[in-house]
């Protein structure tokens, strides 16, 4: 029972954090047709920024997460304006630009703050007892925050004018521009939102595991897997693929070890791609 419930919570935590990261990745892909490989590094930087704004300004953990999200949103606008907007049409150059961003961010993290064991302080530390099962509150609260944010972002995309503009731009960039939608503003907003979400995910994950300058690499692969399994361009499908991948990562390592679990997870992603390239919920490619 104990193991079952804890695995369930772990699965939910991993799923919700994966979805937060993948949602940003998918947003950028939908709106700009760009695969932002630097997204994992943005997640890593978000975790560190959360840690440092919290410890320098003495903010409570939730304040640190919010402030860090704001900082990273600005960084997202900067990335879009100074890089991706200029290179948008050229796949190789956007790829190279995101790789250069990875190199610069990881090196900066490594030489300035890497190598020291750090944890983001948890929003709600301690343990709680539900019936016979002991749970760590930080995992439960991470899960709750993530789910709350996901609902919020979903409403933002579907119900607000800016969100609808984003959907329009992702469907047809030229037509939206002709309708009077400011495509650049929408792209910048997508980047800001995407980086803010990654930063929150980093802050939440940073309270569960320790910070590491290279923590973004694994997360990038997870985000890719989620987007692929859901189908590129399908935002709603991310929730299902997130649960699948999150629970694979929470359960398989128990039976096969960490590396074995990773082999199984990548094999599953490859299988989905080969059998159903459009993903579970995507359009025909």
């Amino acid at each position, binding site marked *: 029972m104990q193991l079952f419930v804890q695995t369930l919570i772990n699965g939910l935590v991993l799923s919700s954090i994966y979805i937060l990261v993948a949602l940003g990745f998918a947003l950028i892909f939908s709106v700009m047709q760009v695969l932002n490989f630097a997204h994992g590094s943005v997640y890593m930087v978000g975790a560190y920024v959360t840690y440092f704004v919290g410890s320098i300004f003495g903010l409570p953990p939730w304040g640190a997460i919010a402030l860090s999200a704001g900082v990273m949103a600005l960084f997202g606008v900067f990335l879009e304006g100074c890089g991706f907007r200029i290179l948008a049409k050229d796949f190789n150059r956007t*790829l190279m630009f995101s790789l250069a961003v990875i190199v610069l961010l990881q090196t900066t993290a490594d030489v300035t703050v890497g190598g020291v064991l750090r944890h983001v302080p948890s929003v709600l530390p301690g343990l709680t007892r539900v019936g016979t099962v002991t749970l760590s509150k930080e995992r439960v609260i991470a899960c709750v925050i993530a789910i709350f944010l996901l609902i919020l972002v979903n409403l933002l995309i579907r119900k607000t004018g800016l969100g609808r503009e984003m959907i329009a731009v992702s469907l047809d960039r030229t037509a939206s521009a002709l309708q009077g939608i400011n495509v650049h503003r929408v792209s910048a907003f997508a980047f800001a939102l995407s980086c803010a979400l990654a930063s929150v995910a980093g802050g939440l994950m940073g309270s569960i595991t320790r910070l590491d300058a290279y923590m973004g690499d694994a997360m990038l692969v997870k985000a890719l897997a989620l987007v692929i399994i859901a189908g590129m361009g399908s935002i709603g499908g991310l929730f299902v693929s997130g649960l699948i991948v999150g629970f694979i990562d929470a359960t398989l390592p128990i039976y096969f070890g960490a590396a074995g679990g990773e*082999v199984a997870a990548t094999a599953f992603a490859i299988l989905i*791609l080969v059998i159903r*390239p459009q993903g579970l919920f995507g359009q025909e490619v």
Partner: protein
Amino acid sequence: MKEGPKTSNGTSLPKYALLFVAAVLLIILPFLGIGGGPYFIHICILIFTFVIVTSSLRTIYLSGQASVAPAAFMGIGAYTSAITSARLGVSPWATMFIAALGTMAVAAAVGYIFSRLRAIYFSVVTVFFGVGVEALIRALESLTGGRTALVGYPGFGILRISGIGVIDFASSKIPAYYLLLILAALTLLALYRLERSRTGMNWAAVAQSPLVASSIGISEVKFRVLAFSVGCFFAGLAGAAYGHYSGVLAPGSYGLMSSIAIVTYLLLGGQKYFFGPVLGVVILVAVPEFFRSAKEYAPYITGGVMLVVIFLIPEGLASLTKPAWLWLRRTAGKGAQ
């Protein structure tokens, strides 16, 4: 994909002269006594290895397949060769080629399965394949040594050739330098011939338009799988040769970030140009070495070079060679007048 600019007859003579000078330089290089001795030789060996891998990756790109798993195939070659030579007691000289063929077989199977995916989807599936291979190396602990490094497999040892004498790979890095130099030269020659052959034209056709290519009887799947397996053959060969030279294999060197680094060498050098990968590898491997005294800051150089190339030289470094040559000729001509 467009072909690189063809050199006209007027410039072909200097091109061969340049190649000849480069060959002579590379052959006498170990005896010039430049910089840190064995360390300098080691960097050269590293450059030769990655020239092989990156050039073979370019061959795969020629057929329109943007693979992001070159390091994974290097790893397959390296581990296969190391394990077969250690467990079966076969000479590394044989296992190196056995491993390359094995890598090619894996690539053919994988390439066939992945051949129904195009463009970004193909790149993404190779990302997963690369991650999976690295995880598999870590998972098969009894065979590969798991997450710690694999050591204790045979190196190239001492080679006795009647008439020439004894070549000792263990006590000096210079024999390995020549081995990798020869392998790199042969690889470049083979890839150059292939690219200029009918097969190479078919690759370009498949890359440009699979539909048109298949309408004139060029099988997309056949030529894509062919390009993929040929490219991976050389990646496996380079991985195996480097593995026997270094004597230590760690799964981390064959992961996603290593693959991405190799893709960066290619894009930075210029994938449209045959010598683009060579330029990219030399610049990105050698330049950070100049700043070795501040090693942890060296990636800033890499990142800076990348940004400059992305924004100022969109076609890659190799696209500068022609204007540079013209400029050189013009200034030289002026000087003569």
